[in-house]
Protein backbone atom coordinates (compact mmCIF):
# COMPACT_ATOMS: atom_id res chain seq x y z
CA UNK A 1 0.00 0.00 0.00
CA UNK A 2 2.92 2.27 -0.53
CA UNK A 3 1.33 4.07 -3.40
CA UNK A 4 -1.78 4.86 -1.47
CA UNK A 5 -2.70 8.52 -1.31
CA UNK A 6 -4.56 8.77 1.97
CA UNK A 7 -6.88 11.62 2.86
CA UNK A 8 -7.36 10.33 6.34
CA UNK A 9 -5.21 8.17 8.57
CA UNK A 10 -6.43 7.01 11.95
CA UNK A 11 -3.74 5.74 14.27
CA UNK A 12 -4.34 3.90 17.50
CA UNK A 13 -7.40 5.95 18.36
CA UNK A 14 -8.60 5.71 21.94
CA UNK A 15 -11.89 7.16 23.06
CA UNK A 16 -13.47 6.73 26.43
CA UNK A 17 -16.53 7.79 28.35
CA UNK A 18 -16.79 8.59 32.00
CA UNK A 19 -19.85 6.93 33.45
CA UNK A 20 -21.29 6.09 36.85
CA UNK A 21 -19.53 2.77 36.74
CA UNK A 22 -16.19 4.31 35.89
CA UNK A 23 -14.41 4.88 32.65
CA UNK A 24 -15.55 3.01 29.56
CA UNK A 25 -13.05 2.57 26.78
CA UNK A 26 -15.43 2.41 23.84
CA UNK A 27 -12.64 2.68 21.28
CA UNK A 28 -9.24 1.37 22.22
CA UNK A 29 -6.80 0.92 19.39
CA UNK A 30 -8.42 1.75 16.08
CA UNK A 31 -6.24 2.31 13.05
CA UNK A 32 -7.11 2.50 9.40
CA UNK A 33 -6.46 4.54 6.28
CA UNK A 34 -8.90 6.21 3.97
CA UNK A 35 -7.38 6.38 0.48
CA UNK A 36 -8.48 9.22 -1.73
CA UNK A 37 -11.57 8.48 -3.74
CA UNK A 38 -12.06 5.05 -2.23
CA UNK A 39 -14.64 3.54 0.02
CA UNK A 40 -13.54 1.89 3.18
CA UNK A 41 -15.87 -0.22 5.24
CA UNK A 42 -15.87 -0.53 8.99
CA UNK A 43 -17.65 -3.70 10.08
CA UNK A 44 -18.33 -5.09 13.47
CA UNK A 45 -21.13 -6.12 15.75
CA UNK A 46 -23.28 -3.57 17.39
CA UNK A 47 -21.39 -2.06 20.33
CA UNK A 48 -17.97 -2.65 18.84
CA UNK A 49 -17.28 1.07 18.67
CA UNK A 50 -17.98 1.92 15.05
CA UNK A 51 -20.16 4.93 15.72
CA UNK A 52 -17.84 6.22 18.40
CA UNK A 53 -14.95 5.93 15.96
CA UNK A 54 -16.74 8.05 13.40
CA UNK A 55 -17.95 10.56 15.95
CA UNK A 56 -14.38 10.82 17.22
CA UNK A 57 -13.21 11.78 13.75
CA UNK A 58 -15.65 14.70 13.69
CA UNK A 59 -15.17 15.34 17.41
CA UNK A 60 -18.89 15.12 18.02
CA UNK A 61 -18.76 12.87 21.05
CA UNK A 62 -21.29 13.20 23.85
CA UNK A 63 -20.14 15.39 26.68
CA UNK A 64 -18.87 12.55 28.80
CA UNK A 65 -16.76 11.24 25.93
CA UNK A 66 -13.14 12.16 25.25
CA UNK A 67 -10.43 11.19 22.83
CA UNK A 68 -7.73 9.84 25.09
CA UNK A 69 -5.02 9.04 22.62
CA UNK A 70 -3.96 8.37 19.07
CA UNK A 71 -4.01 10.48 15.97
CA UNK A 72 -6.52 11.33 13.31
CA UNK A 73 -4.57 12.82 10.43
CA UNK A 74 -6.60 14.61 7.81
CA UNK A 75 -4.40 15.90 4.99
CA UNK A 76 -1.56 16.28 7.43
CA UNK A 77 -3.52 17.94 10.23
CA UNK A 78 -4.09 16.01 13.44
CA UNK A 79 -7.78 16.46 14.12
CA UNK A 80 -7.36 15.48 17.75
CA UNK A 81 -5.29 18.62 18.22
CA UNK A 82 -6.81 21.31 16.01
CA UNK A 83 -8.96 24.08 17.47
CA UNK A 84 -12.71 23.80 17.78
CA UNK A 85 -13.00 26.59 15.24
CA UNK A 86 -10.98 24.65 12.70
CA UNK A 87 -13.14 21.60 13.39
CA UNK A 88 -16.25 23.61 12.58
CA UNK A 89 -14.71 24.64 9.28
CA UNK A 90 -14.17 21.01 8.44
CA UNK A 91 -17.48 19.60 9.64
CA UNK A 92 -20.11 19.48 6.96
CA UNK A 93 -17.68 21.11 4.60
CA UNK A 94 -14.75 18.75 4.07
CA UNK A 95 -15.87 15.87 6.21
CA UNK A 96 -19.55 15.20 6.55
CA UNK A 97 -21.62 12.49 8.05
CA UNK A 98 -24.91 10.67 7.64
CA UNK A 99 -26.43 8.98 10.64
CA UNK A 100 -28.16 5.74 11.30
CA UNK A 101 -31.51 7.20 12.31
CA UNK A 102 -33.09 9.18 9.51
CA UNK A 103 -36.28 9.50 11.51
CA UNK A 104 -34.71 11.52 14.30
CA UNK A 105 -31.71 13.09 12.63
CA UNK A 106 -33.57 15.95 11.01
CA UNK A 107 -34.85 18.85 13.04
CA UNK A 108 -38.64 18.58 13.12
CA UNK A 109 -39.31 22.30 13.20
CA UNK A 110 -37.40 23.35 10.07
CA UNK A 111 -38.04 22.58 6.46
CA UNK A 112 -35.77 20.35 4.48
CA UNK A 113 -34.58 23.31 2.46
CA UNK A 114 -33.75 25.36 5.53
CA UNK A 115 -31.71 22.52 6.92
CA UNK A 116 -29.75 21.91 3.74
CA UNK A 117 -29.19 25.63 3.24
CA UNK A 118 -27.54 26.08 6.59
CA UNK A 119 -24.33 24.34 5.63
CA UNK A 120 -24.18 26.25 2.35
CA UNK A 121 -24.70 29.56 4.06
CA UNK A 122 -22.16 28.98 6.78
CA UNK A 123 -19.43 27.31 4.69
CA UNK A 124 -19.84 28.76 1.24
CA UNK A 125 -21.07 32.21 2.06
CA UNK A 126 -24.21 31.86 -0.02
CA UNK A 127 -27.24 33.97 0.72
CA UNK A 128 -30.56 32.37 1.53
CA UNK A 129 -31.85 32.46 -2.00
CA UNK A 130 -28.75 30.96 -3.58
CA UNK A 131 -28.73 28.30 -0.91
CA UNK A 132 -32.34 27.38 -1.65
CA UNK A 133 -31.60 27.05 -5.34
CA UNK A 134 -28.65 24.82 -4.55
CA UNK A 135 -30.76 22.81 -2.12
CA UNK A 136 -33.20 22.01 -4.86
CA UNK A 137 -30.33 20.84 -7.05
CA UNK A 138 -29.03 18.68 -4.28
CA UNK A 139 -32.43 17.12 -3.69
CA UNK A 140 -32.57 16.34 -7.37
CA UNK A 141 -29.09 14.86 -7.19
CA UNK A 142 -30.14 12.41 -4.50
CA UNK A 143 -33.17 11.39 -6.51
CA UNK A 144 -36.01 13.09 -4.70
CA UNK A 145 -38.99 13.59 -6.99
CA UNK A 146 -40.35 17.13 -7.43
CA UNK A 147 -37.53 18.69 -5.43
CA UNK A 148 -38.96 22.21 -5.80
CA UNK A 149 -41.89 21.11 -3.70
CA UNK A 150 -40.01 18.90 -1.29
CA UNK A 151 -37.58 21.61 -0.40
CA UNK A 152 -40.41 23.25 1.53
CA UNK A 153 -41.49 20.07 3.28
CA UNK A 154 -41.05 19.39 6.97
CA UNK A 155 -39.35 16.14 7.95
CA UNK A 156 -42.58 14.62 9.24
CA UNK A 157 -43.99 14.81 5.74
CA UNK A 158 -41.29 12.47 4.40
CA UNK A 159 -40.76 8.74 4.63
CA UNK A 160 -37.66 7.25 6.21
CA UNK A 161 -36.02 6.61 2.86
CA UNK A 162 -36.73 10.16 1.73
CA UNK A 163 -35.33 11.55 4.92
CA UNK A 164 -32.16 9.57 4.47
CA UNK A 165 -31.88 11.01 0.97
CA UNK A 166 -32.28 14.45 2.47
CA UNK A 167 -29.52 13.64 4.94
CA UNK A 168 -27.32 12.60 2.06
CA UNK A 169 -28.13 15.76 0.14
CA UNK A 170 -27.29 17.76 3.23
CA UNK A 171 -23.98 16.01 3.71
CA UNK A 172 -23.03 16.50 0.08
CA UNK A 173 -23.95 20.18 0.08
CA UNK A 174 -20.38 21.43 0.29
CA UNK A 175 -18.71 18.75 -1.83
CA UNK A 176 -16.96 17.04 1.04
CA UNK A 177 -13.67 15.26 0.75
CA UNK A 178 -14.87 12.49 3.02
CA UNK A 179 -18.36 11.22 3.64
CA UNK A 180 -18.91 9.14 6.73
CA UNK A 181 -22.01 7.00 6.47
CA UNK A 182 -22.85 5.38 9.79
CA UNK A 183 -25.17 2.46 9.05
CA UNK A 184 -27.17 4.62 6.67
CA UNK A 185 -29.52 1.81 5.73
CA UNK A 186 -29.99 -0.11 8.95
CA UNK A 187 -33.19 1.64 9.91
CA UNK A 188 -34.77 1.32 6.48
CA UNK A 189 -36.86 -1.28 4.66
CA UNK A 190 -34.91 -3.80 2.65
CA UNK A 191 -35.92 -2.44 -0.76
CA UNK A 192 -35.15 1.11 0.28
CA UNK A 193 -31.83 -0.09 1.69
CA UNK A 194 -30.72 -1.22 -1.74
CA UNK A 195 -31.72 2.10 -3.30
CA UNK A 196 -29.83 4.15 -0.76
CA UNK A 197 -26.75 1.95 -1.09
CA UNK A 198 -26.87 2.31 -4.82
CA UNK A 199 -27.23 6.06 -4.45
CA UNK A 200 -24.19 6.37 -2.21
CA UNK A 201 -22.11 4.21 -4.52
CA UNK A 202 -23.18 6.17 -7.53
CA UNK A 203 -22.52 9.54 -5.91
CA UNK A 204 -19.14 8.37 -4.70
CA UNK A 205 -18.14 7.54 -8.22
CA UNK A 206 -19.51 10.71 -9.70
CA UNK A 207 -18.13 13.08 -7.10
CA UNK A 208 -14.90 11.23 -6.41
CA UNK A 209 -15.04 11.62 -2.67
CA UNK A 210 -13.81 9.12 -0.12
CA UNK A 211 -16.43 7.27 1.85
CA UNK A 212 -16.19 5.64 5.24
CA UNK A 213 -18.99 3.16 5.21
CA UNK A 214 -19.99 1.79 8.56
CA UNK A 215 -22.10 -1.31 8.76
CA UNK A 216 -22.58 -4.53 10.63
CA UNK A 217 -23.43 -6.24 7.37
CA UNK A 218 -20.58 -7.94 5.54
CA UNK A 219 -22.73 -8.45 2.49
CA UNK A 220 -23.04 -4.70 2.07
CA UNK A 221 -19.29 -4.34 2.46
CA UNK A 222 -18.69 -6.77 -0.37
CA UNK A 223 -20.80 -4.67 -2.69
CA UNK A 224 -19.54 -1.22 -1.84
CA UNK A 225 -16.08 -1.11 -0.32
CA UNK A 226 -12.49 -1.10 -1.52
CA UNK A 227 -10.98 -1.66 1.90
CA UNK A 228 -12.36 -3.01 5.13
CA UNK A 229 -11.55 -2.55 8.77
CA UNK A 230 -13.02 -5.25 10.96
CA UNK A 231 -13.73 -4.06 14.49
CA UNK A 232 -14.12 -6.13 17.60
CA UNK A 233 -14.69 -4.76 21.10
CA UNK A 234 -13.38 -1.29 20.36
CA UNK A 235 -10.38 -2.39 18.32
CA UNK A 236 -9.56 -2.90 14.68
CA UNK A 237 -8.58 -6.54 14.42
CA UNK A 238 -8.03 -6.69 10.71
CA UNK A 239 -7.63 -4.12 7.99
CA UNK A 240 -7.22 -5.19 4.40
CA UNK A 241 -8.36 -4.76 0.86
CA UNK A 242 -11.70 -6.23 0.07
CA UNK A 243 -10.46 -9.12 -2.08
CA UNK A 244 -8.10 -10.38 0.57
CA UNK A 245 -10.66 -10.16 3.29
CA UNK A 246 -13.23 -12.16 1.41
CA UNK A 247 -10.80 -14.67 -0.12
CA UNK A 248 -8.37 -15.16 2.70
CA UNK A 249 -9.54 -13.55 5.96
CA UNK A 250 -6.84 -13.85 8.59
CA UNK A 251 -8.22 -12.93 11.95
CA UNK A 252 -10.23 -15.72 13.54
CA UNK A 253 -13.04 -13.25 14.14
CA UNK A 254 -13.12 -12.27 10.47
CA UNK A 255 -13.12 -15.92 9.51
CA UNK A 256 -16.01 -16.55 11.84
CA UNK A 257 -17.91 -13.60 10.47
CA UNK A 258 -17.47 -14.71 6.89
CA UNK A 259 -18.37 -18.26 7.72
CA UNK A 260 -21.62 -17.16 9.19
CA UNK A 261 -22.47 -15.22 6.08
CA UNK A 262 -25.30 -17.09 4.39
CA UNK A 263 -24.45 -17.55 0.78
CA UNK A 264 -26.89 -16.26 -1.85
CA UNK A 265 -29.10 -15.00 0.83
CA UNK A 266 -30.19 -11.43 1.37
CA UNK A 267 -31.41 -11.85 4.90
CA UNK A 268 -28.34 -11.09 6.93
CA UNK A 269 -29.85 -10.35 10.23
CA UNK A 270 -28.20 -13.22 12.01
CA UNK A 271 -24.61 -12.39 11.47
CA UNK A 272 -23.26 -13.93 14.63
CA UNK A 273 -23.28 -17.63 15.18
CA UNK A 274 -19.81 -17.30 16.69
CA UNK A 275 -20.15 -18.80 20.16
CA UNK A 276 -20.14 -16.57 23.20
CA UNK A 277 -20.82 -12.92 23.74
CA UNK A 278 -19.08 -9.65 23.14
CA UNK A 279 -17.25 -8.69 26.34
CA UNK A 280 -18.85 -5.91 28.33
CA UNK A 281 -16.87 -2.68 28.19
CA UNK A 282 -16.47 -2.86 31.98
CA UNK A 283 -14.73 -6.19 31.97
CA UNK A 284 -12.50 -6.39 28.98
CA UNK A 285 -10.18 -9.40 28.83
CA UNK A 286 -6.58 -8.41 29.53
CA UNK A 287 -5.17 -10.27 26.58
CA UNK A 288 -6.69 -10.62 23.15
CA UNK A 289 -10.27 -9.42 23.41
CA UNK A 290 -11.48 -12.21 21.21
CA UNK A 291 -9.71 -14.88 23.23
CA UNK A 292 -12.75 -15.97 25.29
CA UNK A 293 -14.52 -16.85 22.04
CA UNK A 294 -11.62 -17.81 19.83
CA UNK A 295 -11.28 -21.51 18.98
CA UNK A 296 -7.52 -21.07 18.58
CA UNK A 297 -6.84 -19.14 21.77
CA UNK A 298 -3.64 -19.97 23.66
CA UNK A 299 -2.29 -18.90 27.04
CA UNK A 300 -0.34 -16.15 25.34
CA UNK A 301 -3.55 -14.84 23.78
CA UNK A 302 -5.21 -14.70 27.17
CA UNK A 303 -2.28 -13.02 28.83
CA UNK A 304 -1.15 -10.42 26.39
CA UNK A 305 -2.91 -8.24 23.86
CA UNK A 306 -1.58 -8.60 20.32
CA UNK A 307 -0.51 -5.45 18.50
CA UNK A 308 -1.88 -4.45 15.14
CA UNK A 309 0.79 -5.77 12.79
CA UNK A 310 1.33 -4.90 9.17
CA UNK A 311 2.07 -7.80 6.86
CA UNK A 312 4.01 -7.99 3.60
CA UNK A 313 1.09 -6.92 1.47
CA UNK A 314 0.40 -3.90 3.65
CA UNK A 315 -2.67 -5.36 5.32
CA UNK A 316 -2.99 -5.20 9.06
CA UNK A 317 -3.86 -7.88 11.57
CA UNK A 318 -4.18 -8.08 15.33
CA UNK A 319 -3.62 -11.73 16.20
CA UNK A 320 -0.80 -13.73 17.72
CA UNK A 321 -1.07 -16.42 15.05
CA UNK A 322 0.68 -14.14 12.63
CA UNK A 323 3.53 -13.17 14.91
CA UNK A 324 6.87 -14.77 15.59
CA UNK A 325 5.81 -15.41 19.16
CA UNK A 326 2.91 -17.73 18.31
CA UNK A 327 3.24 -20.63 20.76
CA UNK A 328 0.73 -23.00 19.15
CA UNK A 329 0.69 -25.37 16.21
CA UNK A 330 1.99 -24.28 12.86
CA UNK A 331 -1.27 -25.17 11.20
CA UNK A 332 -4.15 -23.56 13.00
CA UNK A 333 -7.70 -24.64 12.46
CA UNK A 334 -10.27 -21.91 12.89
CA UNK A 335 -13.95 -22.43 12.15
CA UNK A 336 -13.13 -25.21 9.75
CA UNK A 337 -10.43 -23.28 7.91
CA UNK A 338 -6.70 -23.70 8.16
CA UNK A 339 -4.26 -20.85 8.58
CA UNK A 340 -0.50 -21.15 8.59
CA UNK A 341 1.03 -19.53 11.65
CA UNK A 342 4.10 -17.41 11.28
CA UNK A 343 6.17 -18.56 14.25
Amino acid at each position, binding site marked *: MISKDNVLEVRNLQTSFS*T*DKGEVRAVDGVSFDVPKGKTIGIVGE*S*GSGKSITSLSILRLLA*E*NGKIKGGEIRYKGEDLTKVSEKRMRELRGNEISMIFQEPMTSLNPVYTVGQQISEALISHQGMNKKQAMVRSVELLKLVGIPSPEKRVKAYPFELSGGMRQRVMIAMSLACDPEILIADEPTTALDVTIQAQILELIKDLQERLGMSVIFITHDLGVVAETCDYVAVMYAGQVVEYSDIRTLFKQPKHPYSIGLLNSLPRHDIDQEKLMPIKGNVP*SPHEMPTGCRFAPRCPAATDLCRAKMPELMTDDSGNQIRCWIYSDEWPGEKEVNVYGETRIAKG
Partner: protein
Amino acid sequence: MSEETVNHPVTAKKVNPQLESFKQFWRRLAKNRAALIGGIMILFFVIMAFLGPWIISTFTDWEPNKTSVANKLQGPSAEHWFGTDSFGRDIFTRIVFGMKLTLYVGFLSVFVGGIVGVILGIVSGYYGGKVDTIIMRLMDVLLAFPGILLALAIVAVLGGSLTNVIIAVGIFSVPAFARIVRGSTLSVKKLEYIDAVRALGASDFRIIFKHILPNVMSPIIVQASLRIATAILTGAGLAFLGLGAQPPAPEWGAMLNEGRQYMYEAGHVALFPGLMIVVVVLAFNIFGDGVRDALDPKMKK
Protein backbone atom coordinates in the same frame (compact mmCIF):
# COMPACT_ATOMS: atom_id res chain seq x y z
CA MET B 1 -25.43 0.58 27.21
CA SER B 2 -28.91 0.35 25.84
CA GLU B 3 -27.96 -2.57 23.70
CA GLU B 4 -27.23 -4.73 26.69
CA THR B 5 -30.74 -4.31 27.97
CA VAL B 6 -32.37 -4.67 24.60
CA ASN B 7 -30.63 -7.92 23.88
CA HIS B 8 -31.68 -9.31 27.20
CA PRO B 9 -34.43 -11.82 26.57
CA VAL B 10 -37.49 -11.57 28.75
CA THR B 11 -37.30 -14.93 30.42
CA ALA B 12 -38.75 -14.69 33.89
CA LYS B 13 -42.31 -13.74 33.26
CA LYS B 14 -43.64 -14.20 36.71
CA VAL B 15 -41.06 -12.04 38.35
CA ASN B 16 -41.98 -8.43 38.46
CA PRO B 17 -39.32 -6.86 36.29
CA GLN B 18 -39.60 -3.47 37.91
CA LEU B 19 -39.51 -4.68 41.46
CA GLU B 20 -36.08 -6.15 40.95
CA SER B 21 -34.76 -2.67 40.71
CA PHE B 22 -36.41 -1.51 43.91
CA LYS B 23 -33.36 -2.25 46.01
CA GLN B 24 -31.34 -0.48 43.40
CA PHE B 25 -33.70 2.43 43.71
CA TRP B 26 -33.01 2.78 47.41
CA ARG B 27 -29.32 2.56 46.80
CA ARG B 28 -29.57 5.27 44.18
CA LEU B 29 -31.70 7.34 46.50
CA ALA B 30 -29.08 7.15 49.23
CA LYS B 31 -26.46 8.21 46.72
CA ASN B 32 -28.53 11.14 45.51
CA ARG B 33 -27.29 14.19 47.33
CA ALA B 34 -30.49 16.20 46.91
CA ALA B 35 -32.64 13.41 48.28
CA LEU B 36 -30.27 12.97 51.19
CA ILE B 37 -30.14 16.66 52.10
CA GLY B 38 -33.89 17.05 51.74
CA GLY B 39 -34.51 13.91 53.75
CA ILE B 40 -32.25 15.00 56.57
CA MET B 41 -33.88 18.42 56.68
CA ILE B 42 -37.34 16.87 56.84
CA LEU B 43 -36.23 14.53 59.57
CA PHE B 44 -34.83 17.45 61.51
CA PHE B 45 -38.11 19.34 61.19
CA VAL B 46 -40.13 16.35 62.34
CA ILE B 47 -37.92 15.93 65.37
CA MET B 48 -38.16 19.63 66.05
CA ALA B 49 -41.94 19.46 65.85
CA PHE B 50 -42.06 16.73 68.48
CA LEU B 51 -39.17 17.55 70.76
CA GLY B 52 -38.97 21.32 70.33
CA PRO B 53 -42.02 22.27 72.37
CA TRP B 54 -41.06 19.80 75.07
CA ILE B 55 -37.52 21.13 75.30
CA ILE B 56 -38.74 24.71 75.44
CA SER B 57 -41.34 24.05 78.10
CA THR B 58 -38.95 21.95 80.17
CA PHE B 59 -35.86 24.08 80.08
CA THR B 60 -37.13 27.61 79.66
CA ASP B 61 -40.09 29.58 80.84
CA TRP B 62 -41.12 30.59 77.36
CA GLU B 63 -44.61 29.84 76.24
CA PRO B 64 -46.07 30.28 72.81
CA ASN B 65 -49.05 32.26 74.02
CA LYS B 66 -47.58 34.11 76.95
CA THR B 67 -48.22 37.77 76.29
CA SER B 68 -46.25 40.63 77.72
CA VAL B 69 -47.40 43.99 76.55
CA ALA B 70 -44.32 45.65 77.93
CA ASN B 71 -42.15 43.62 75.58
CA LYS B 72 -44.17 43.95 72.42
CA LEU B 73 -42.64 44.27 68.96
CA GLN B 74 -39.07 43.91 70.11
CA GLY B 75 -36.43 43.08 67.55
CA PRO B 76 -34.30 39.92 67.76
CA SER B 77 -32.13 39.81 70.86
CA ALA B 78 -30.36 37.31 73.09
CA GLU B 79 -33.51 37.04 75.15
CA HIS B 80 -35.90 36.77 72.19
CA TRP B 81 -34.01 35.23 69.29
CA PHE B 82 -36.60 36.09 66.69
CA GLY B 83 -37.98 39.07 68.59
CA THR B 84 -41.50 39.46 69.92
CA ASP B 85 -44.84 40.11 68.28
CA SER B 86 -47.50 42.71 68.95
CA PHE B 87 -48.61 40.92 72.10
CA GLY B 88 -45.06 40.57 73.32
CA ARG B 89 -45.06 36.84 72.61
CA ASP B 90 -41.74 35.22 71.81
CA ILE B 91 -41.68 34.55 68.07
CA PHE B 92 -39.07 31.83 68.23
CA THR B 93 -41.14 29.86 70.70
CA ARG B 94 -44.22 30.31 68.57
CA ILE B 95 -42.38 29.13 65.50
CA VAL B 96 -41.15 26.01 67.24
CA PHE B 97 -44.65 25.26 68.47
CA GLY B 98 -46.06 26.05 65.04
CA MET B 99 -43.83 23.54 63.28
CA LYS B 100 -46.20 20.79 64.28
CA LEU B 101 -49.16 22.60 62.74
CA THR B 102 -47.32 23.17 59.49
CA LEU B 103 -46.20 19.57 59.16
CA TYR B 104 -49.63 18.46 60.27
CA VAL B 105 -51.27 20.35 57.43
CA GLY B 106 -48.65 19.15 54.95
CA PHE B 107 -48.59 15.48 55.85
CA LEU B 108 -52.18 14.92 56.77
CA SER B 109 -53.75 16.67 53.82
CA VAL B 110 -51.46 14.92 51.38
CA PHE B 111 -52.03 11.63 53.14
CA VAL B 112 -55.78 12.01 52.86
CA GLY B 113 -55.69 13.38 49.33
CA GLY B 114 -53.06 10.83 48.38
CA ILE B 115 -55.07 7.83 49.52
CA VAL B 116 -58.18 8.98 47.71
CA GLY B 117 -56.17 9.94 44.62
CA VAL B 118 -54.24 6.68 44.53
CA ILE B 119 -57.38 4.60 44.83
CA LEU B 120 -59.12 6.58 42.11
CA GLY B 121 -56.03 6.42 39.91
CA ILE B 122 -55.58 2.68 40.28
CA VAL B 123 -59.26 1.95 39.73
CA SER B 124 -59.27 4.24 36.73
CA GLY B 125 -56.17 2.78 35.16
CA TYR B 126 -56.87 -0.84 36.05
CA TYR B 127 -60.48 -1.09 35.00
CA GLY B 128 -60.46 1.50 32.23
CA GLY B 129 -63.64 2.03 30.24
CA LYS B 130 -66.50 4.04 31.65
CA VAL B 131 -65.18 4.09 35.19
CA ASP B 132 -61.98 5.57 33.89
CA THR B 133 -63.77 8.23 31.89
CA ILE B 134 -65.96 9.27 34.77
CA ILE B 135 -63.14 9.44 37.29
CA MET B 136 -60.86 11.33 34.99
CA ARG B 137 -63.55 13.84 34.02
CA LEU B 138 -64.16 14.36 37.70
CA MET B 139 -60.49 15.09 38.17
CA ASP B 140 -60.66 17.52 35.26
CA VAL B 141 -63.44 19.32 37.07
CA LEU B 142 -61.33 19.64 40.22
CA LEU B 143 -58.40 20.83 38.14
CA ALA B 144 -60.55 23.50 36.55
CA PHE B 145 -60.29 25.55 39.72
CA PRO B 146 -56.90 27.15 39.44
CA GLY B 147 -54.35 27.22 42.21
CA ILE B 148 -55.59 28.01 45.65
CA LEU B 149 -59.13 28.67 44.43
CA LEU B 150 -60.45 25.16 45.00
CA ALA B 151 -59.15 25.04 48.55
CA LEU B 152 -60.53 28.51 49.07
CA ALA B 153 -63.98 27.55 47.85
CA ILE B 154 -64.03 24.50 50.09
CA VAL B 155 -62.97 26.48 53.14
CA ALA B 156 -65.56 29.07 52.20
CA VAL B 157 -68.19 26.41 52.59
CA LEU B 158 -66.84 24.58 55.59
CA GLY B 159 -65.62 27.60 57.47
CA GLY B 160 -62.10 28.47 58.52
CA SER B 161 -60.30 26.05 60.82
CA LEU B 162 -57.21 23.89 60.74
CA THR B 163 -59.22 20.74 60.11
CA ASN B 164 -61.10 22.32 57.26
CA VAL B 165 -57.87 23.54 55.74
CA ILE B 166 -56.58 19.97 55.82
CA ILE B 167 -59.73 18.72 54.14
CA ALA B 168 -59.61 21.47 51.54
CA VAL B 169 -55.95 21.00 50.74
CA GLY B 170 -56.47 17.23 50.73
CA ILE B 171 -59.18 17.48 48.09
CA PHE B 172 -56.97 19.89 46.21
CA SER B 173 -54.25 17.19 46.10
CA VAL B 174 -56.43 14.36 44.84
CA PRO B 175 -56.28 14.98 41.06
CA ALA B 176 -52.49 15.09 40.90
CA PHE B 177 -52.21 11.68 42.55
CA ALA B 178 -55.04 10.20 40.54
CA ARG B 179 -53.50 11.23 37.24
CA ILE B 180 -49.99 10.06 38.01
CA VAL B 181 -51.08 6.77 39.50
CA ARG B 182 -53.43 6.12 36.63
CA GLY B 183 -50.59 6.60 34.15
CA SER B 184 -48.27 4.30 36.05
CA THR B 185 -51.00 1.71 36.49
CA LEU B 186 -51.66 1.69 32.78
CA SER B 187 -48.02 1.06 32.02
CA VAL B 188 -47.69 -1.65 34.66
CA LYS B 189 -50.87 -3.30 33.48
CA LYS B 190 -49.34 -3.72 30.07
CA LEU B 191 -46.42 -5.73 31.43
CA GLU B 192 -46.41 -9.37 30.56
CA TYR B 193 -46.04 -10.60 34.06
CA ILE B 194 -49.38 -9.14 35.07
CA ASP B 195 -51.00 -11.35 32.46
CA ALA B 196 -49.08 -14.30 33.82
CA VAL B 197 -50.21 -13.55 37.36
CA ARG B 198 -53.78 -13.23 36.20
CA ALA B 199 -53.55 -16.46 34.30
CA LEU B 200 -52.60 -18.11 37.58
CA GLY B 201 -55.94 -17.03 38.93
CA ALA B 202 -55.05 -14.06 41.10
CA SER B 203 -57.95 -11.82 41.96
CA ASP B 204 -58.10 -8.19 40.89
CA PHE B 205 -57.70 -7.18 44.50
CA ARG B 206 -54.57 -9.28 44.87
CA ILE B 207 -53.12 -8.07 41.60
CA ILE B 208 -53.67 -4.47 42.56
CA PHE B 209 -52.19 -4.82 46.01
CA LYS B 210 -49.38 -7.24 45.38
CA HIS B 211 -48.33 -6.26 41.92
CA ILE B 212 -49.53 -2.87 40.85
CA LEU B 213 -49.28 -0.87 44.03
CA PRO B 214 -45.60 -1.66 44.70
CA ASN B 215 -44.84 -0.63 41.18
CA VAL B 216 -46.49 2.72 41.38
CA MET B 217 -44.98 3.41 44.79
CA SER B 218 -42.04 5.42 43.52
CA PRO B 219 -44.00 8.01 41.55
CA ILE B 220 -46.30 8.26 44.56
CA ILE B 221 -43.37 9.09 46.83
CA VAL B 222 -42.14 11.78 44.46
CA GLN B 223 -45.60 13.21 44.09
CA ALA B 224 -46.25 13.12 47.81
CA SER B 225 -43.11 15.02 48.60
CA LEU B 226 -43.80 17.71 46.02
CA ARG B 227 -47.45 17.88 47.04
CA ILE B 228 -46.57 18.34 50.69
CA ALA B 229 -44.60 21.40 49.64
CA THR B 230 -47.61 22.77 47.78
CA ALA B 231 -49.94 21.83 50.61
CA ILE B 232 -47.88 23.73 53.16
CA LEU B 233 -47.89 26.78 50.93
CA THR B 234 -51.61 26.53 50.35
CA GLY B 235 -52.36 25.96 54.01
CA ALA B 236 -50.21 28.93 54.97
CA GLY B 237 -51.97 31.02 52.33
CA LEU B 238 -55.38 30.15 53.71
CA ALA B 239 -54.23 30.88 57.24
CA PHE B 240 -52.79 34.15 56.03
CA LEU B 241 -56.21 35.05 54.69
CA GLY B 242 -57.66 34.31 58.10
CA LEU B 243 -59.34 31.14 56.85
CA GLY B 244 -57.13 28.60 58.55
CA ALA B 245 -56.01 28.01 62.09
CA GLN B 246 -57.54 30.66 64.26
CA PRO B 247 -55.62 32.85 66.70
CA PRO B 248 -53.90 32.46 69.00
CA ALA B 249 -52.64 29.23 67.35
CA PRO B 250 -48.97 29.72 66.38
CA GLU B 251 -49.66 28.83 62.77
CA TRP B 252 -47.01 30.43 60.57
CA GLY B 253 -49.37 31.77 57.93
CA ALA B 254 -51.55 33.30 60.62
CA MET B 255 -48.47 34.77 62.29
CA LEU B 256 -47.54 36.34 58.98
CA ASN B 257 -50.97 37.84 58.78
CA GLU B 258 -50.62 39.34 62.24
CA GLY B 259 -47.15 40.60 61.46
CA ARG B 260 -48.36 42.23 58.32
CA GLN B 261 -49.87 45.13 60.22
CA TYR B 262 -46.55 45.97 61.82
CA MET B 263 -44.45 45.61 58.74
CA TYR B 264 -43.25 49.15 58.75
CA GLU B 265 -42.23 49.39 62.37
CA ALA B 266 -41.34 45.74 63.13
CA GLY B 267 -40.51 43.83 59.97
CA HIS B 268 -39.17 40.84 61.87
CA VAL B 269 -42.64 39.77 62.95
CA ALA B 270 -43.50 38.79 59.38
CA LEU B 271 -39.96 37.87 58.39
CA PHE B 272 -39.34 34.79 60.49
CA PRO B 273 -42.54 32.83 59.93
CA GLY B 274 -42.12 33.44 56.21
CA LEU B 275 -38.52 32.28 56.27
CA MET B 276 -39.53 29.14 58.11
CA ILE B 277 -42.18 28.35 55.53
CA VAL B 278 -39.57 28.78 52.80
CA VAL B 279 -37.11 26.48 54.51
CA VAL B 280 -39.59 23.72 55.20
CA VAL B 281 -41.15 23.87 51.76
CA LEU B 282 -37.67 23.91 50.29
CA ALA B 283 -36.81 20.69 52.10
CA PHE B 284 -39.76 18.87 50.59
CA ASN B 285 -39.06 20.25 47.14
CA ILE B 286 -35.41 19.23 47.31
CA PHE B 287 -36.35 15.79 48.54
CA GLY B 288 -38.96 15.37 45.81
CA ASP B 289 -36.52 16.49 43.13
CA GLY B 290 -33.91 14.12 44.44
CA VAL B 291 -36.23 11.15 44.48
CA ARG B 292 -37.39 11.91 40.99
CA ASP B 293 -33.83 12.09 39.71
CA ALA B 294 -32.97 8.87 41.45
CA LEU B 295 -35.95 7.32 39.73
CA ASP B 296 -35.17 8.65 36.33
CA PRO B 297 -31.65 7.66 35.39
CA LYS B 298 -32.12 9.38 32.06
CA MET B 299 -31.54 12.75 33.58
CA LYS B 300 -28.28 11.83 35.24
CA LYS B 301 -25.07 13.05 33.76
